[in-house]
Every structure is written in C-alpha cells, then in structure tokens.
C-alpha cells in the first residue's frame, strides 16, 4: 500500500477500513472498489428503497451512488467515515428524486396501492393464509407510515433504525447538528407511534 495512503489514514480515519479501501480505489485498485460494492450494495439499495419505495428507482439511484463514488475516487479524502460519505450521496440523490417527483406528480404516488410498491415480507415458518394477509397489511401500514414522514425525518429514521448509525453520523449525512437530529428523530418516532399504535 502506498506511503501516502498510510499517512492520510493515520491523520483522518485511521480505524475506518472502508476509507482505506477507498484510498486504494483512488490508487487504481479495482478490486477494492468491488469489495466496497459488495459490502454496501444491499444496505444502500435498501435504504433508497425505503426512501423512494420503488424498487426500480431505488436500484437506479443506488447505481448512481456507486458511480459517483467511483468517479470521485481521484479527489477522495478520508475526512469522515466512508459510510457517512456514502449515505450522504445516497440521501442527496433520494431527496432530489423525491423533490422532483413531488414537483411532477404531487404527493399521490405515496398513496398508491400495494402492487406499485412491492415488499418482501419476513416469512413465518408455516404461515396460514390469514396470517400472511395480516402480515401483509401490517407491513403495508408500516410502509405508508414511513412514507408519510417528512423526507428528512424519514431519512433520519431509516439511518437510525436500519443502518444503526450514530446521531453524530446522521447529523453529518443530513448536514445538521446532532441535537437537531435527536429532535428530528424524536418527532418522527412520535408520529410513527401515533400511526402504528394499534400494532402493539
């Protein structure tokens, strides 16, 4: 590994192995990019799916995320955790897409039927038809409740719940203070509690 990489790593994100991989990508190592892709393909795509709630769009946006990562390799500097940077790109793309959609079609897309937003459900061991239907309905309610959250709150909840990010990291992704993130999450969960209270 080049000396420069070690130097930069020591200064900034010494413990972030992903940042180290990214610096190797910067030095032309395609295998390191493949490793990062393998590691984060699912989480980025799933995060985007939960944000935009359309599979094709989420994959398209996820491809754009990794394309941007690859294109930015030459100017990459490990000033933050790699995942912070990665999810910052993903969130930015998702918010832009949602904004464009809102401008084009208004909010009605989020209220479309289940068929337009395919969901994979957690399979029970041997669910009856009735159990499956109940499960589907519950999942759909969760999907709608999340979709109804303001976009920034939605992004914060998804990063907090599914990506298990720390408040400081979410703050960096959303370009706001840590206390703002805590407040954002508190309000978001409050809304979700009201909407999903009957599911307890």
């Amino acid at each position, binding site marked *: 590994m080049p000396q420069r990489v070690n130097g930069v790593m020591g200064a900034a994100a010494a413990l972030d192995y992903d940042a180290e991989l990214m610096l190797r990508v910067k030095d032309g190592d395609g295998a390191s990019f493949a490793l990062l892709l393998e590691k984060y393909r699912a989480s980025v795509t799933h995060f985007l799916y939960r944000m935009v709630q359309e599979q094709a769009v989420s994959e398209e946006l996820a491809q754009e995320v990794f*394309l941007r990562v690859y294109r930015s390799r030459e100017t990459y500097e490990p000033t933050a955790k790699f995942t912070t940077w990665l999810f910052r790109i993903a969130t930015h793309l998702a918010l832009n897409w949602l904004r464009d959609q809102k401008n084009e079609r208004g909010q009605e897309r989020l209220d479309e039927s289940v068929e337009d937003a395919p969901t994979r459900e957690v399979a029970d061991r041997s669910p009856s038809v009735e159990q499956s239907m109940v499960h589907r309905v519950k*999942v759909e309610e969760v999907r709608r409740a999340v979709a109804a959250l303001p976009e920034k709150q939605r992004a914060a909840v998804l990063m907090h719940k599914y990506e298990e990010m720390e408040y400081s990291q979410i703050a960096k992704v959303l370009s706001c203070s840590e206390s703002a993130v805590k407040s954002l*999450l508190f309000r978001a969960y409050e809304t979700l509690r009201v909407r999903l209270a009957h599911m307890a």
Partner: protein
Amino acid sequence: MNCPIKTHENTDWLLDYSAGKLNADRTTLVERHMETCPDCARFVEGQRAVWSALGRWEPPAVSADFNRRLYQRIDRARPASWLERLFRPLQPLWRPVVPLAAACLLMIAGVALHAPEPALHRNSSQARIESIEPEQVERTLDDMQMLRELALTPQQEQTTPKPM
C-alpha cells in the same frame, strides 16, 4: 434525571433505551425515572412497538445483474483515451463517411464477384482459337506437303539410273 418528554432533554436516552442500545449507567437512570413517570413509560412501550413494526418491513432483494449494469455504466463513463480525444472533433465529419464507404466497398465487391469476366475471357480466347484454326490447319497441310515432296525427291534421285 429530568423528564425527557417534559423537558425535551436526553430524548435520545429514551430512544436508545427502547432499542436496547443505552449503556448500563444511563439504563439505571431511565428505569428509575420511569418508575415515577408514566409518560416516559408509555413512550418506551410505544417506541418498542414502533421498533418492532419497522423490523417487519423488509425490502426486496437487489437484482442479480446489479453489478453488471453498474460496471457497464462505469465503462461508459470511462474517460476517453488521448487518441479518441484527438479524433473527437473530426467525428461529425467522418462519421457519415464510414457507412458510405462501407456501402461503396460492398458494391465494388458485389460487382467483382458477379461480373461475367471469366466467361468473356473464355469466349474471346475460344473465338481467337477458332479464327486462327483454319489458317493453322492450312499451313500445317502445306508444311506436310512440302515435307513429303522433300522426302520423295532424294528417293527419285537414287532410283533414277545414271546415264552411261
């Protein structure tokens, strides 16, 4: 500990406690507070239900050809080589010429393959042979006649008796 719900302080403690991610010291404080605060206890109960409900929602699996499509896009986005960059300004000029040249080449090849040239050659040589043939035959006959005469003349000389 101040009530997180009333003061909006340490609301993250309640969130983390509900998710089972709060450290031991703070967990003790939150639990002690909840014993006397039904609002916070209700909050935690509701938050756990939300947490569990969110856990039910799983996204669809990523398409199998995700990487292939991504690498295709990366290839397309690859910066052009110096040679490509050099000829790029000329592309609008020579781009329409290429199919035209290809069409011309095809036409030439077609003409070359299907032209009745060999037949023409064959016919002309045959015609030449045909036109030459009677003369040759005539000359050959003449030559044969001459040879015959030449051959006869010494014999006659030999058989003719010398005058005494």
